[in-house]
Every structure is written in structure tokens, then in C-alpha cells.
């Protein structure tokens, strides 16, 4: 809601132009406070009917300082009606409409002084002077706009060129993409072919491996049973091939909670509902439960929890790092994806690179397949890179750089502004940041959001949104008022509302002198 005075002045200059016409025919007799356009509604020869039609009163009641009409139409020239409107002609300057409450309140609101008619000495007519000033200011602004608009044309030209270039780049990239995709397809075929061969050759080795694995498994099983039987025999004190409750009671290892005795619960844990277990049941059920306890007792085995936690921690740290990299920079995302995939690939490769010795012919096939795989992933990466470039260019092409692309060349241009405490940086169509002069990190005040000027003048305000969140508050945003100026620079940076920043930017791109009629619609009342 805070308009710079500068901007206000601009508004007023445009209004003056319109006002000269009215001034030329302002001497039609009419009651005080009535504008020319409504003069015909006040006829001294007739009774007066309120505009809303609710009452008809003698004409002498018009401007008699008593409000008779609900709509205030009977008192255009006094303060009697709360909702009335007072019109001052302000000959020599621009006309004004005031709320009736500003009539005869001792404050000079109209430059012709008519609002303070009761005390004419209070408000001398300053319209000529003001009009002159306003015309001079209008002149200055007109010249500024004229000069600025020449630069603006250059901006437009460059902008269009930039866009054309981008469009060309895009079509080139589309071509590159098709090409890259073609290569990728070829490489894929090649890769498949060679991998098939490789698989065939490796089949022998794989079968061997499988057999080896089976052998290992069986051996392990045997060992397990053997070990179990050893223990079974040790606990089976009466050697009746059955383990009873009494037999395990004196055995320490069954005392799971280490309270000095093997109690009911512990027996139930190992034996289930049974009184005793035979060899088979021991091997299949009891032993797997018992073994960890035994190992723990012997100090061979430690609970796994600590280790897991440590892993989780390092993972969380890693994630945090990644988050930090992401902050406010979407472009990084693709790059990151690439990186991650590469890491995974490397890991896979690492696993398959077990020091295995193949015969020469097989080794050759493996090497060829590996080469094909590498070529394929290179081809894939190229496609992704091209696609990413296409996305970026498309994004830029979709950005609204103004009706004539006048803002296009400003994209990515960074401007700085220093005040007592901070250095502010606006990278147009990108982001706004703030950095304390006492050091500390850069704080994001918003990323390019949208044009946010009113219906009449969309390109007068830029909005950068979704900056770093305020303590206990919303995300920071920055509003940039775009003014006509000979140079592209920051005029001021303020924080009128907490965490809402306001930048006054001047740039020739905003010097659109063809479009002035839109501005003049900004009449106050």
C-alpha cells in the first residue's frame, strides 16, 4: 500500500493532461461542489429530487447545510451529508472529488480553496502554481519516458533476439535429442547383443559357482547339526536321547535372564508346551534359540543395535547435506539425479568386479560387454542432459517477459543495494537475497514468482515468493515495484511489513510511453 512519491507524481502528471479539457468549459453556473457533468441535475427553477429518488425538496434546501437526502445529493457543497461528494474544479490544475467530510474542516484539500469556502482567507488558490509544477513534472516524466522508451526498444529488440536464439537453441536441442536417442537405441541393441554372448559364456562359470554354493550350504548344515548334537549330548545327562526339564535346569545357558535359575518362563521359551524334546526337535527348534545365547556368553556375539543406530545417523547426516544443497535451487535436481545414479552404477560394477579369473575368450566377451554397457550409459546420460537443457530453455521461454519481451534481457541480471545493515541482491527473474554486513549466510528473500501489478498495469510489480521462512512466521516474500528509469538499478529496499520486502527498481524496460492511457485511469475518487 505504500506508493513511492515518485510513482504518485507519475500518476498525477497523466491526470493533468485530461484536466485541461474540463478547465476550458468550467464556468457553467451550478451549485458549489457540483461537477460539470452533474450540473444539469441541479435546476434552480425546480424542486430538487434526491438522486436516489427518495425525496423531493425545495431547491432552497440544496446546499443549505442540512442533509435531506439519504444519498447526500442535496448537499454537494457542504459537509452536511456523511456520504456526500464535493467536486472542486481546480482551474489550472486537475479537478478533484472529495468526501463531504473534508469540506469546511479547516484543511485545504482543493488547490482552488473551494472546499474551505467559509474561510476564504485560509486557503489561497494555488492551482496555477501547482499546475505549473505538475506540468513541469509531467514534462520531465514525458521526457524521461521518451528517452527511456528508446532504450526500451533496444531491450525489446535484444529480448526478441534472445528469445529467437532460445527458440533456435531449442530446435537444435530437439534435434540433438533425437540424435542422442537414436544413439542410445543403437547402443542398447549392441549392449543386449554382447550381454547375451557374455551370459552364454558365463553360464558355465555360473553353474560351477552354484554347485560350490550348494556344497557350502550343506556343509554348514552338517556343521550345525553336529554342533547341536554335541550340545544335546552334553545336556542329556541320562543319555536317554531325550532332553527333559530337569536336565536343562542346572545348565546356565538356559537361564536367559541371568537371574540364577532356569524358571518356568524360560523352560516355556525353549520347550514350548512340551515337557521334553527329542533330538530332532532340539536341532530344529531349540538350538537356533540357544545358539545366540551361547555365543553371547562366550563373547563372540554382540547385539546388533548399536551398529544399526550408527548407520542411521550417518544416513540422516547425508540426507541433511542433500537438503542443504537443494535449498531454493530447482535446477540442481536433475544434476543430482544423475549423480546418484552414477553412484549406484559404480556400486554394481564394484560388486561384479570380483577377482575372478576367466579363460581368455570369456574374458574378452566380458570386456566387450562391459564396454557396451559403458557406452550405453554414456548415451543415456547425453539424452538426459539434452532433455534437461530443453526443460530449462522451455521454462525460460514460458517466463512472461512482458508483452514485447522488453524484460527478457534482464533475466539473470543481478543488482545490488546496500543499506546500513545489509547488502540486498536482486537477480531478476531468479531470486532476491539479503546478506548482513556483519557476516553470516545469505538469506533468501524470495524466488521469482509472478507479475503482480493490477489489472491495468500487470508489469509494474514483480513478486518473488517462498523465501526462507521467518522465525515463527511465514516465508519471506519480496515485492518489486518496477519504475521507468534510464538505468536498470535498485532505488531502495525496505521491509515495510515483517518478512515482506519491498524493492523499488528502475529500468528502461518500464518506460512504455505508448501505453499512457492505462495509467490515467488511476483517479482517486
Amino acid at each position, binding site marked *: 500500500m505504500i506508493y513511492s512519491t515518485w510513482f504518485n507524481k507519475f500518476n498525477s502528471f497523466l491526470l493533468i493532461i485530461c484536466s485541461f479539457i474540463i478547465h476550458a468549459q468550467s464556468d457553467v453556473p451550478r451549485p458549489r461542489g457540483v461537477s460539470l457533468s452533474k450540473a444539469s441535475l441541479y435546476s434552480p427553477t425546480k424542486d430538487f429530487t434526491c438522486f436516489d429518488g427518495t425525496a423531493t425538496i425545495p431547491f432552497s434546501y440544496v446546499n443549505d447545510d442540512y442533509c435531506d437526502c439519504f444519498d447526500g445529493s442535496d448537499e454537494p457543497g457542504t*459537509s452536511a451529508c456523511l456520504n456526500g461528494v464535493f467536486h472542486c474544479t481546480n482551474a489550472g490544475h486537475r479537478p478533484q472529488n472529495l468526501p463531504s467530510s473534508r469540506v469546511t474542516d479547516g484543511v485545504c484539500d482543493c488547490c482552488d480553496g473551494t472546499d474551505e469556502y467559509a474561510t476564504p482567507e485560509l486557503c489561497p488558490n494555488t492551482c496555477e502554481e501547482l499546475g505549473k509544477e505538475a506540468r513541469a513534472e509531467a514534462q520531465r516524466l514525458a521526457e524521461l519516458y521518451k528517452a527511456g522508451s528508446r532504450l526500451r526498444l533496444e531491450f525489446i529488440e535484444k529480448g526478441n533476439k534472445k528469445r529467437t536464439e532460445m527458440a533456435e537453441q531449442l530446435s537444435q536441442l530437439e534435434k540433438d535429442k533425437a540424435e542422442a536417442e537414436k544413439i542410445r537405441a543403437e547402443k542398447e541393441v549392441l549392449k543386449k547383443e554382447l550381454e547375451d554372448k557374455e551370459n552364454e559364456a558365463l553360464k558355465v562359470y555360473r553353474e560351477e559357482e552354484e554347485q560350490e554354493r550348494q556344497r557350502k550350504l550343506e556343509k554348514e548344515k552338517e556343521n550345525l547339526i553336529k554342533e547341536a548334537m554335541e550340545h544335546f549330548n552334553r545336556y542329556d545327562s541320562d543319555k536317554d536321547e531325550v532332553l527333559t526339564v530337569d536336565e536343562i535346569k542346572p545348565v546356565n545357558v538356559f537361564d536367559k535372564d541371568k537371574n540364577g535359575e532356569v524358571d518356568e518362563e524360560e523352560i516355556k521359551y525353549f520347550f514350548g508346551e512340551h515337557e521334553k524334546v527329542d533330538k530332532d526337535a532340539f536341532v530344529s527348534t531349540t538350538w537356533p534359540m540357544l545358539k545366540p545365547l551361547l555365543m553371547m556368553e562366550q563373547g563372540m556375539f554382540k547385539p546388533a543395535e548399536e551398529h544399526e543406530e550408527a548407520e542411521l545417523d550417518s544416513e540422516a547426516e547425508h540426507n541433511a547435506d542433500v537438503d542443504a544443497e537443494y535449498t531454493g535451487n530447482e535446477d540442481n535436481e536433475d544434476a543430482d539425479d544423475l549423480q546418484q545414479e552414477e553412484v549406484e552404477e559404480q556400486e554394481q560394477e564394484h560388486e561384479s568386479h570380483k577377482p575372478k579369473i576367466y579363460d581368455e575368450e570369456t574374458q574378452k566377451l566380458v570386456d566387450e560387454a562391459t564396454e557396451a554397457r559403458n557406452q550405453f550409459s554414456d548415451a543415456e546420460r547425453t539424452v538426459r542432459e539434452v532433455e534437461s537443457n530443453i526443460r530449462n530453455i522451455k521454462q525460460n521461454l514460458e517466463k512472461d517477459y512482458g508483452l514485447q519481451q522488453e524484460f527478457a534481457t534482464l533475466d539473470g541480471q543481478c543488482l545490488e543495494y546496500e543499506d546500513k545493515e545489509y547488502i540486498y541482491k536482486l537477480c531478476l527473474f531468479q531470486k532476491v537475497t539479503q546478506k548482513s554486513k556483519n557476516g553470516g549466510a545469505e538469506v533468501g528473500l524470495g524466488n521469482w514468482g509472478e507479475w503482480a501489478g493490477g489489472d491495468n498495469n500487470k508489469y509494474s510489480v514483480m513478486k518473488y515468493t517462498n523465501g526462507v521462512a521467518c522465525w515463527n*512466521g511465514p516465508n519471506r516474500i519480496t515485492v518489486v515495484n518496477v519504475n521507468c528509469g534510464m538505468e536498470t538499478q535498485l532505488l531502495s529496499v525496505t521491509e515495510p511489513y515483517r518478512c515482506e520486502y519491498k524493492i523499488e527498481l528502475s529500468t528502461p524496460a518500464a518506460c512504455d510511453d505508448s501505453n499512457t492511457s492505462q495509467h490515467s485511469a488511476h483517479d*482517486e475518487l
Partner: protein
Amino acid sequence: MKSLELILFIFTIGGIYAVDRNNFKTCDQSGFCKRLRSFKPEKSQYTLNLDSVLVHGNVLSAEVNTIDTLTEKKTVLWQYTLRLSALIDGTFRVEIDEADPLYPRYRTQLALDGEPKPDKLQLVSSENGKITIINTQGHKVVITAEPLKFEFLDKSGDVAVVLNENSQLLVEPLRVRREKNSDDEEGNAENALDVEDETAWSENFKSHHDSKPRGNEAVSLDASFPDADHAYGIPYHTDKFYLKTTTSAEPYRLYNLDVFEFELDSPMALYGSIPVMYAHGAKRSVGVFWHNSAETWVDVVNYADGTVVSSLVNLVTGGAKRRVDARFMSESGIVDMFVLLGDTPSDVFRQYVTLTGPAPIPPKFSLAYHQCRWNYVDENDVRSVDENFDVHDIPADVIWLDIEYTDRKKYFTWDVEKFPHPAEMVANLTAKGRKLVVIIDPHVKREAGYFVHEDATDNGYYVKDKDGKDYEGWCWPGSSSYLDFFNPVVSQYYRERYSFENFPGTSKDVHIWNDMNEPSVFNGPEVTMPKDCRHYKSAQDGQDGLASFWEHRHVHNEYGLWNIKATYEGMLQRTNSKYRPFILTRSTFAGTQRYAAMWTGDNMAEWGYLAVSIPMCLASAVAGVSFCGSDVGGFFKYPEAELMTRWYQAGAYQAFFRAHSHIETKRREPWLYDSATMALIRDANRRRYALLDFWYTLFYEHTINKLPVMRPLFQEYPKEQDAFTIDDQYLLGDKLLIRPVVEPGVSSVKVYLPGASTSTLWYDVDSYHAHKANGYFNQEVTISKTPVYQRGGSIIPRKERIRRSSSLMANDPYTLIVTLDVNNTAEGTLYIDDGETYEYRNKKFIYAKITYELNLMSYTFVNENASYPTRSWVERIVIAGIKTPPKTAKLHQGNKQTVLQMTLHRGNDVLVIRKPGASMAQPWTITFTY
């Protein structure tokens, strides 16, 4: 404004909105409260020496001793003196001090508006161990010698107030600190108080140590109010307007504290303390004023309360259920109790203001709308807020600047980057009749080169710590010290800071906000100054050591009062006493009304805080401080549209009408809401401005009749039992009844219309529909409706041309709203002056009485030798409730006679007289024929 949340931000994470109770003491954690609350002797040890009684002038003086009640010997334990004085207007004062205290005990200095005026006192009788005295109004006091008891009788001879009925009179004698196991001359005395508990010579609270160099020095007294239904007063608390029984809860606490995010429905201490209590029943109203500035706790027992054991009730009252007992306990000082004998609510409220002084007529702008925020960040921001009020056609009188306008919290300076041209900024405001208020807190930044700090350090102007060094605390500027206003030299220094020369950029249109003056000390015990800090005491012969200074504990609750007194006098000085100062204070005490307006502190954008603003301001108003309001919209958090709308609508009918908000919250100036909400806010503000002359007249009348501006219903309807506990509606003067909507989403509210027995009519101010008073009824409401009723029989002046600011309305014409009673009569008053100077003291004012009866309406001057050349006139007279309209109306003013036109609105029996045009500078009459 705000409290210590910046400090708290460091320690707390997340936005939890609740008071941290651990920061504040319970009775058990307050040494003397715990000690005294458990002091329940069967029989008082205090006896009056009948032989020593002397009646001279308006004073009865006598010796009072404590005696050992356990033995037959009646050994005298300690000697005291009693002064009982009769004062004008049905008031007595009871003072009990030690006969020969080790050091002088503190007597509160600033609460009273000068020495109370004496009445005459006569000894009626002295027999059977009782003394009876009487004042000129016929109030008797019966003093029983043993145990000591004071019974104050009303004019019909019934007991109205009893002191020491419950044997809780206590003055702990000052002692010399003894080493353990050593005998001294008092060592043999067998007194309950001789058993010194561990807290006698030092106390700890959290990490804070209180050295208590004088040991225990507490005082206590109980007061009983026979026939009372309820007790009221002792603000400020967030509880109901009527006081609750505290037997099984915490007592009400009076100790001025910066309570961050204070909670609702609590007897906890707040920013202000006014130790006056009223008791009211259908039979009479009485009051007591406990004249003490130390930390105070008050227990209340209402015998009608369900929680009071019935056997106790029967024992004490013989079955009668109507009685309230109260007990005041203070950490130090003397027993000094004023007894106000009423006997109507208005009488007793007036009696209190007679003692502590009425509020002077405020500058008129201060009754209008104030726009505040922590903070308007720079001159452009101020200009923009100012302009936006005009763009959106919302009247406003004052823009406020919170602490950020200063050069890094150094008061009496400006931030030269953000406020490089303060004088131009002020001129820009005053061009439209607006004013500026800037904050000046009492803490002083300890920064080398800051002139206030240098002067204060060089000249010893700061409050001292327990060792006599400049006390250092932590507040907004960081390390801070506090000016010792008790020293006349310091107050003079402080007054001079306000001169236009010393505070450049200010003018007569810049007024002052004294915040944080409890005082708030972020790192102090309970966020205030340690009790063993030292204040100035005027030097007297033979008083050295502990007798040469006052401790902060003695004076705490009146620290803020000394602060605003110095500000007030400084602001008078700066214009050679031409213009009236406006000051807002957060800390309050008895007598605050003589200098400043107050607000209820750092509230929250929640419905409960809107609702509690009414009982809080009612309690304030009956305790002398009518100029009370709450932060419209709530200080913490953000009010959504409905709450904001209701708060403006309520605030428009409270004396101090200011929107304010916390620096961390979303901006909320009216135009930042949707246009419908903004229109409702505009409407609320316009209603306030239309009634500004009514408000101004009420504040003028307060200076004459000393009555609250905002009144509880029972003040005007003292016999209506149902009205005794109503605290969600109130009266402005005796003419308007307000029931703000403080509930979300309601389509109707319950409104109590008093005065059924006298056939009172209440006219809805929106429709002129007349309601016959008959207790409760349901008033339908929409979002634009605030139930307000004008009493039949009253005339209220309005100004219906709402300008940008109140001063621009000075010459505007009046609309007189006449609402007829059942006898077709009505009357009202109007006060007019220049609104800002003291010229009214030179008879430059109009105080007019306006009456209406069947054949005649008249506007006459009450003070015939006073006048004011106002250019205002009568543009409209609205007569509501007219049954038979007159045929003709003729205005007579001076030699002129004018026939007036009238319009009758049949639908609601309203007659409008069109444009009488009579000047308000001269009396006039209108005659009617039928």
C-alpha cells in the same frame, strides 16, 4: 506494549502461548504471604490502652499494645500507636504504626491527592471497654479495647464495616538482627512472631536472592462487610469483576509485574495494583482502601459462596448468608486503612476518588481513536498509515511509535536513519489535526556517551543495588539502569528531558507513552527489580545505615506512579502549563488517574481476551482509573476478521481506544482486511467519533462528581440483585448501556435491562425501538450490530459529520438525541471547551444542561459565569418515543424567534426537528404547542 519475549525467544522454541507461572511467586513462595496466611490466632493480641485515648480535632489517638494472651499476666509485648481520623464525605482512616520503630516504616507517598480533608470527630461515650465516636454525617465508630476491634456503623446505626473482626491485625515489629543463641533484651518475649523462620533475614526465589536487611516487617488487617452480597475492586486481575472466595485457592495478588502472555481467570498479579475494595449488597455499599505500596496479597471469603463451610457461616453470622470478609497482607509499611461508608455505590466510588484525586479533563484527541503498532518502521511507514486512514475514510487521531523509533533504545533520541525528520513527520500529522505518541520507558541504556546515562551516572540518579552501587538490570536496550524518581533532583532532571529543546522533533502535539514501568527487568526476580534495591529517602537527622534509604520492597507498586508524575510535570513544563499532557502508563497504582490513562497490557488475539477487557476496565474505573482500554485486536497473535470487527466495536465504547500489535505479527491496519470488514471497522470508529462529545462530557463530569465514566450496572441500580454479578455489559455515565458482542459466531446475545421497578425504557440506538426494562432478553445481532441502548429520560449530544480527526470536528453542529421516559421528559448535559488547554480554568468553557418536557426544551448553562465562543450549533434534534407530536415548534435564542420544521416518523415514534440552527455558545429554548 510488549514484555520480555525477546529474552524468552532465546530459551523457548515454538509459539506456545501461555504464561510461564514458574516465573512468578505463589503465596507459599512469598515469605510473608505464607507466614501471614497461616497466622490465625483465636484471639487478637492487640489491645487499646483506654487511658491513653485522646480526641483532638478530627483525630482519635491512642496507645495500642500487643499482649501475651496465653498467660493471665497480660505482659505487654510491643507498643504501637493508633490514629483514627474522621475525613470528609463519610470516610475514616485507621493508622497503626510501631510506637518507636527501629527504623521509620514506609508510608506510601503518592497515592493520595494531598492530605485528606478532615471532618469533625466527637467522642460519644467511653464505657464497658468500648469507645464510641461520631463524625458530622452521623457515622459512628465503636472501638472495643480488648481485643482491639473497630465497628463502623452506617447512618441508621447498623454495623457496616468491622476491622480486626477475624483477629488478623498484625504489624511485625522491626528487629535487630541477632546472632543465633545470643540473648538480648527482647530475647525473653514469648511472641508468636519471635519464632523467626528461616526466611526472616533472607529469601530466595529461583536463582534470585533477597537480602532482607531489615528482616520481617509485614502488616495485615482484616475487614468484614456484613450484609454484602459481593466484593469488587483490587484490580488488576483477569478474573470476574466480583471477587471470589480464595480460601482454597491463591489469594488475589497486588504486585506490579510484567507478566508475559498473562492468562485468563486468574488472581495472579499483573502490571497494575490498586488496593481498594468495595462491598455491596442491597442494603448498602462500603469500601476499604489499603494504603500500602508494598507487595500485597488479599484473601476474600464470601459467605454466600458454596465453598465456604456452612458451619462457619452459622457460627460467625448467626445463619445470615450475606457477608464478605477480606484480609490484606503486605510485606512492609504500616497499617493504613481508609474506611468508606457509602452508602450507595456512587457514594463509595466518589469517596475513594476524593482521597486519590479525580482524573483531570483529558485532551480531547486522547478520547478518539489511536493507531499503534510495534513498530511503524520509519517516516514513510508513518506517512503511509496516516494517508491510508484518509484514503479509506476512517477517522483516526493518533499514530504511535513504539521503541524502535529510538536510536537503539536510547530514549529521548531518534533513529536518524529511519526518522531523520521527526518535526516534519509530526507537522504532516498535525496538518490534519492528528497527533503523535512516542514511547519513553524508564530504563536507561548503559552506554558510554548516552547523555542520560552519563548524567545519571555522574550525579547518582540511578536506583542503587543492595550494596549501594548503581543497579544494573537487563531490558530492551540490553544492560540498563533505572532512574530513581523518588529523588526530587532526579525527577526534576527527568522533567527537563521532555522540553522541546532537550527532545528535538517533539512539539505540543507529541505525547508520551510510559511503558515497562512496573519496572520491568528481564533478568530480575519475577521480571522486576530486586526488593533489596535502594531508593532515595530525604535525609533526616539521625537516620543512617538502614534508615537512610527506602528499599524497593517498600515502594514497588508506586514506582510507576513516580515515573508518570515526573513525565506529567515535564510535559506541563514544556508548554509552560498551557497544554494538557496525555500519557499512557502500563504500571498503575492508586492515584494513577491524576496523570495517565492505562491499558490492560500485552493481551492476545483471542475471544477470551476481548471478553475480559470489560471486567478489567470496570474494576479499573471503580478504582478511579476510568481511562482504560485493551489493545484492540490483541497484542500477540493475529485476529481474524470477525474477532477484529468485534474488538473494534467493543473498543469504540471503551475509554481508551487503541489498536496495537506485536512486531512479529502480521500487519493489521483496517484496510488490510477485506472491504466488508474494513467497512465495519470504519463504522465502529465513526460511532466513536459521533459520541466523542458525550465521552468528553462524562470525563468532565468525573472531575466534578468523581464518578466512574464506565459503570457497573449495580452502580445505578443498587437494589437489583441480578445485576450484581453482570460484567459483560456496563453503563457509560447513567445514559448508555453497552453489551459488546464478545462471542464468535452468535446470532443473539443475552442483555439485561435494569430499572424495571421504575418502568425504565431503553432505546436501541440503531432503531430507536424502546424496550421496557424487564431483566434479561435476547437481542438478535448481526456482524454489524453492537447492542447499545439509550436510557429513556436522557439526552445525548452527537456529532454526525465524521472528519479525519476529532479536532477538525470542533466547530461542527450537534445532533441531540432525546429519548423520552414514561413521563415524556428527558435531560442531558454537554461540556464544550477548546479541547487541549487549561483555559477552562479561566471560565472558558460551557457546561450546559439540556432538558426536554412536553412544552419546552431548553439549553441552559450550569455555570452561568463561564462561556466559550464555540461556533458549533444544533443541526438536528431527534426525539424518540414521542406519542403525541407537537403541532408547532419555535426556537428562542437571544431576541430571535424561529419557527422550526418537524418530521414525524410514525413507524418508530421518532420526531426529527430540522435544522434548529441554534448556536451552542448561547442558551436557547424551544417551545412546543399541540
